């Protein structure tokens, strides 16, 4: 429980493994890094007093120390890895097209395994509370482990003195003794300087160091990760994040949801292009196009005009619109306006817009007793025709299918419209009933004198757009960028130190790096060229 005074006179905080100044192993703390009876020192975090396991009385300290452990961190990572892997065995709930209750879907599709999968919650793993807690625990572990390691390491590296304890030198992995008189120290220093080492001197003891900043890499990348996670967290704040979906028909002007009634969009045109093997430009893909069963899409594009509402304060009134932007949204190129972006994400081709009919004699298609057009977004209940006929729309099925001999509509979208008409000839009270759809034209009775015929129709495409506002992207990108900088800083540079200690009969040389020992030895070999210092050896022996 006391601070430790080293024989060099430096006072170390408790828990120190190697004296901050001279590196002498502090005897009673060697168990912390498992240095006991080992030939080599464990140099992680330079033997600084981290984790402070001595402060372990309160619950807070216990929790803190739990998260501070790298072992715990790595365990959390492995649990996450295994959970994630299981989460990909069957498709996640969100990717399932079917409208069947997921509980039944998993059982039917994947049998018992699917049922267990569903019951354990793996069907929605990535937004399940326990997966989020796993990720959050990794985040907490990153923060605490970094705090516990960065500050002590920083202090130790700052306080380190070139003059090192004998034991410290001897127990370095790279170590060599040279017994010689004519050692060219100046040449050695010069060589080191050329190799961009910084040199510190103390009573003839040398410390050459380079790339200390590489040691901060892990902490920088951890900061990046934390910023990234915070950015992801902000998505739960509505002001930062909007995610809506709208269908807009060609020619239609619709409110863009998620914009608080501020913006409208007019779908000018939706285009779907497919690859055509007869097109000279696509001819090179001939083989692939022929091998594919359906057509291969080339472009999805919505040409649109964005309007801003100018009379925002008058609630309920018809909107007054002002065009603010014209443009196109394609996959990979969202249409951006204000803070929002519209992404091309779905479409529906050839929805019926209107249909025109004429009445003719049952036996003669050429006759014409009058025509009328039905606007499918707003069909009227009766149509008065010029020839005096009256047509009553008894029933309308926007998207009909025959079910048990009865027509039923399966959606509200006019994809396959059908009608039941009552036709009243001029002056008659009795109506003739008939059913009319695409590919169906049935008179209610054999005695019908008249028949209805489809003379024309217009179709239009519907585009599905995702509306996004995402103010978290900046924060998330910042986190990603800092993470990358940190990883590169830590991985592509190596912190290297070389100590030279004058002895009565020559010098001792020792070297340490946080990674790539072979490369450090190469570097030392070049630094001692023409200096009469003997190359040190790698004292490490691999246990295989």
């Amino acid at each position, binding site marked *: 429980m006391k601070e430790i005074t080293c024989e060099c006179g430096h006072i170390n905080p408790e828990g120190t493994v190697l004296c901050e100044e001279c590196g002498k192993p502090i005897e009673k703390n060697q168990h912390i890094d498992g240095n006991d009876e080992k030939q080599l020192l464990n140099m992680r975090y330079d033997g600084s007093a981290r984790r402070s396991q001595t402060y372990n009385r309160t619950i807070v300290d216990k929790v803190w120390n739990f998260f501070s452990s790298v072992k715990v961190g790595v365990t959390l990572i492995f649990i996450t890895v295994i959970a994630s892997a299981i989460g990909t065995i069957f498709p996640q709930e969100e990717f399932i097209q079917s409208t069947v209750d997921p509980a039944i879907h998993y059982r039917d599709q994947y049998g018992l395994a699917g049922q267990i999968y569903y019951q354990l919650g793996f069907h929605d793993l*990535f937004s399940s509370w326990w997966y989020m807690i796993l990720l959050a625990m990794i985040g907490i572990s990153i923060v605490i482990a970094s705090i516990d390691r960065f500050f002590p390491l920083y202090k130790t590296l700052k306080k380190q003195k070139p003059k090192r304890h004998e034991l410290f030198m001897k127990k370095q992995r790279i170590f060599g003794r040279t017994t010689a008189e004519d050692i060219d120290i100046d040449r050695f220093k010069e060589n080191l300087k050329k190799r961009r080492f910084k040199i510190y001197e103390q009573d003839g003891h040398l410390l050459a160091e380079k790339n200390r900043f590489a040691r901060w890499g892990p902490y920088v990348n951890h900061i990046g990760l934390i910023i990234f996670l915070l950015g992801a967290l902000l998505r739960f704040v509505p002001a930062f994040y909007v995610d809506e979906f709208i269908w807009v028909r060609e020619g239609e002007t619709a409110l863009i949801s998620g914009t608080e009634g501020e913006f409208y969009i007019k779908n000018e045109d939706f285009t779907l292009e497919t690859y055509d093997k007869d097109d000279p430009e696509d001819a090179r893909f001939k083989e692939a196009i022929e091998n594919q069963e359906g057509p291969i899409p080339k472009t999805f594009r919505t040409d649109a005009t964005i309007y801003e509402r100018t009379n925002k304060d008058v609630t309920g009134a018809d909107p007054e619109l002002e065009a603010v932007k014209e443009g196109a949204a394609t996959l990979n190129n969202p249409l951006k306006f204000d803070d929002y972006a519209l992404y091309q994400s779905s479409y529906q081709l050839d929805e019926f817009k209107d249909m025109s009919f004429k009445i003719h004699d049952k036996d003669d298609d050429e006759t014409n007793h009058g025509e009328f057009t039905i606007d499918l977004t707003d069909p009227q209940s009766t149509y008065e025709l010029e020839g005096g006929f009256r047509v009553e729309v008894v029933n309308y099925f926007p998207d009909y299918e025959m079910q048990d001999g009865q027509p039923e509509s399966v959606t509200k979208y006019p994809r396959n419209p059908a009608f039941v008409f009552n036709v009243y000839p001029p002056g008659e009270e009795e109506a003739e009933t008939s059913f009319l759809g695409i590919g169906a034209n049935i008179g209610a009775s054999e005695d019908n004198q008249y028949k209805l015929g489809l003379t024309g129709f217009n179709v239009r495409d519907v585009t599905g757009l995702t509306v996004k506002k995402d103010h978290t992207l900046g924060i998330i990108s910042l986190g990603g960028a800092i993470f990358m900088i940190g990883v590169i800083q830590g991985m592509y540079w190596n912190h290297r130190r070389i100590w030279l200690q004058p002895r009565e009969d020559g010098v001792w040389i020792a070297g340490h790096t946080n990674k790539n020992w072979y490369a450090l030895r190469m570097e030392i070999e070049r630094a001692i060229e023409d200096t009469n210092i003997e190359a040190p050896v790698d004292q490490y022996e691999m246990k295989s």
Partner: protein
Amino acid sequence: MGDWTTISGNLLYAAFFIYLIATFFFAGTIRDKKKGKSKIAGNIGITITIIGFVTQIGYFITRWMASGHAPVSNLFEYTTFFGMMLVFAFIVLYFIYRVDLLGLFALPIALLLIAFASMFPTEVSPLVPSLQSHWLYIHVTTASLGQGILSVSFVAGLVFLISQVDQSKRSKHTYWLEFVIYIIAVTLAFIVLSSSFSAMNYEATFEAPIEGQQAEITYEMPAIAGPNEGVLISDDRMAPLFQAPEWMRGEDAAKKLNTFLWAILGGVVLYWGTRLILRKRIAASIQPLLNKKVNPELVDEVSYRAVAIGFPVFTLGALIFAMIWAQQAWDRFWGWDPKEVWALITFFFYAAYLHLRLSRGWQGMKSAWLAVGGFGIIMFNLIAVNLIISGLHSYA
């Protein structure tokens, strides 16, 4: 213009054989007496490797010219590119450490990858709208480079394990090492069987119900496992030994199962055949050849260095660039698509590797096994996720 396709195909063939020749030269380095440093055979080996690599770049460029987009858009193109990146990463690490033995193992793995790639449809395919983005090239190439470098870590780990595992007695180490070798045999068997049957134009057609409708399924290999409730309609073809289980519903599920069974069986024949001839474990037979050449500390460092270099590249390509592209194409940068999840798993796994190594001192054997596991994950993501687990990335 159409000729570019032919030229490109020939260049790939050429690269394949050049790598094969280079492998023999690296094999020749085993005879060198001196430990570590390379001699003549090694120099010739690396020169030929570089020529092969340049030839393969030629394939890449000509194929790009033929298709009008970077050839990384289907499984064939991607796997080929992955093999190329593995060779590139090997060249880079060779010049840092000059370990000849790395070539002897890295090139065969690259050869297997390229041969494996050509088992998939090789025709030039058009890009669907979501793939029409420059981020496709940037994301895929960087991710693949990262995976290539990480794979070198596996190669070095394998060299380490083969040379260091104690073969005098059976252990978990010997067992799993043989398993890794068996998997390599399975891959080889798949390539050999698949190309033999396709050279023979083998076809057997079945009629089977797929999602309630009768459909025709054509096998390119004799059916061990036929489709569930399938009826063989081709004449003179081997009748299946058994039917695929009922829960294998997908159109190609039974066919894939059949191919898988062939590969597994082929692997058994190949592996046990070799083992019976050698009369000991495969790794035990290779070990004496390597012992003189291998410096375990150095090989261990190569393996680690490859992770240190590859991890940032992989993160950048497979996660960050992927997120940027996903944000543009699908309006969200992350969607928990299986391929994404497996990229994240790879990232986590190597992050754990680095933490274990840096903070807990995992070196040598443990580290080598982790490198093998990492490569397993990469291959799983490449093959299993594309062929078995479908998602946005399962190349059409």
